[in-house]
């Protein structure tokens, strides 16, 4: 599903990632761990095609995403669900409308009503669909983000520190929902340095340090 081949990314003189190689299978849940500045977010940004590698290839379903033209990038991104630490919800839209936005972007609009309701049910927010983000607790906002990521039934979910702003109990709920998506066949890459979450779930862990992969273990442990 996702393959990194000797990927190097530099920002000026700073090397964010160096010769990263790894392969992630379809439906796999992988934690990307490491201290701040280790390259976790850079890896996710490369996968989102926000930036391109200086060296190496990133293959998604066998296609090198570095070769995508600008006009193809939006359509590529529609296959990916993204979950952010800071939620990035639109304050002037309700929960329902925030989730609906993904369908509007892909041109489905009103026809996607059932999918939106399913996604909201999946994250337990069906009853709160008409509330605005400011009326929700942090965990509920993150569940809205998760519903937005899941609604288009993406093949890949990228989560960048999704539990960073949440209390431990809420964080576990969110990760459990993401894990459920992986069990349904969606590949998940989750960047985090929350050792409790990583160690409790016992999934594959790719650990980065100073832009290099220092360990890649199935059912790994992580120490901050």
């Amino acid at each position, binding site marked *: 599903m996702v393959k990194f081949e000797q990927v190097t990314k530099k920002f000026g003189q700073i090397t964010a990632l160096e010769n990263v190689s790894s392969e992630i299978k379809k439906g796999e849940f992988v934690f990307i761990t490491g201290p701040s500045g280790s390259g976790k977010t850079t890896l996710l940004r490369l996968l*989102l*095609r*926000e930036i391109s590698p200086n060296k190496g290839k990133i293959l998604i379903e066998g296609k090198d995403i570095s070769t995508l033209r*600008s*006009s193809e*990038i*939006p*359509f*590529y*991104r*529609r296959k*990916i669900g*993204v979950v952010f630490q800071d939620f*990035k919800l*639109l304050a*002037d839209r309700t929960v329902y409308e925030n989730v609906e*936005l*993904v369908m*509007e*972007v*892909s041109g489905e*609009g009103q026809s996607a009503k059932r999918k939106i309701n399913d996604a909201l049910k999946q994250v337990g927010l069906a009853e709160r669909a008409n509330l605005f983000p400011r009326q929700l607790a942090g965990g509920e906002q993150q569940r809205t983000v998760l519903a*937005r990521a899941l609604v288009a039934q993406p093949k890949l979910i990228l989560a960048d520190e999704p539990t960073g702003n949440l209390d431990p109990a809420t964080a576990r709920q969110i990760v459990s929902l993401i894990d459920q998506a992986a069990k349904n066949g969606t590949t998940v890459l989750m960047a985090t340095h929350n050792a409790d979450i990583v160690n409790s779930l016992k999934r594959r862990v790719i650990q980065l340090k100073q832009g290099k992969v220092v360990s890649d273990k199935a059912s790994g442990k992580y120490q901050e």
Partner: protein
Amino acid sequence: MGQHFKTAGKHIRRSPYQAFAAVVIIFITFFVATLLAILAYASYSTLRYFETKPQVIAFLKSEVVPDDIARLQKSLEEDPRVRDVRYVSKEQALEIYKDATSDNPLLSELVSPKVFPASLEFSIADLSFAEELIKEVEIQGTVDQVAFTASLGGSKNIGGVIENLRQISHYIRTGGLVILAFLSVSSLLILLVILSMRVASRKQEVEMLQLIGATPGFIRAPFIFEAIFYAVAGSFLGWIFGILIVLYSMPFLARYFGDVTFLPSEVSQLLILFGAILAAEILLAIILGIIGSSLAIRRYLKI
């Protein structure tokens, strides 16, 4: 499309003062543009009036024989600077006089055709030729004197009339274009600043939309609609006020221009003129809106 209108409407409602400022600036531009367009039309009509109406009357000496008159008429007809040459006999001149004094028949009873000289009337293709042409006609042996019939802004002599027309045309064409260009650029910059503020305040939203796969067109659309709304609202108000000012000034303008039909006299023609100005202004406003919003959002749409 509907959702983009809805989003644009939300943006406008949320910052009414910015929206008001944008509309006012564009209103000023198009208010001036409306006045300039009408002035340009009036100037064109005035020039046409003088070009198509017999402007020069060459009064012939009483002893001139028909052959000499025919020769002079032919040479004028062959001159590319001259149009519509017409011979007016003494009798015809008397008829014209009778028509002009019809309200006082006593005046025409006292005169006979002999009093009136025969004349050659003609118009000039371009008023810039008028002075030299009149001088050429004046020195003809058959011509007693030459009269120029135009009158504008109090000027009774040819030099004054031509100078007035030249000045009006110059101010309207050159000055008008400069003012319009300056105001258009100002409007564009104001639109750019207001929409840049809008886009900057929604930077996170734009970034998020990009990350979930929105195309640049999808992201741009609400901002473009918003800019078009400002531009169209401003231009429409500018047009309305411009037209009202023109209609209000009509009596004064009519006095100033005299017999010159500087605006269409038929209501339908007048409506067509005002409609054409509105259509052109709306089109320009839409172009300004599209350019302003596209430039404003450009820097945030780097993929």
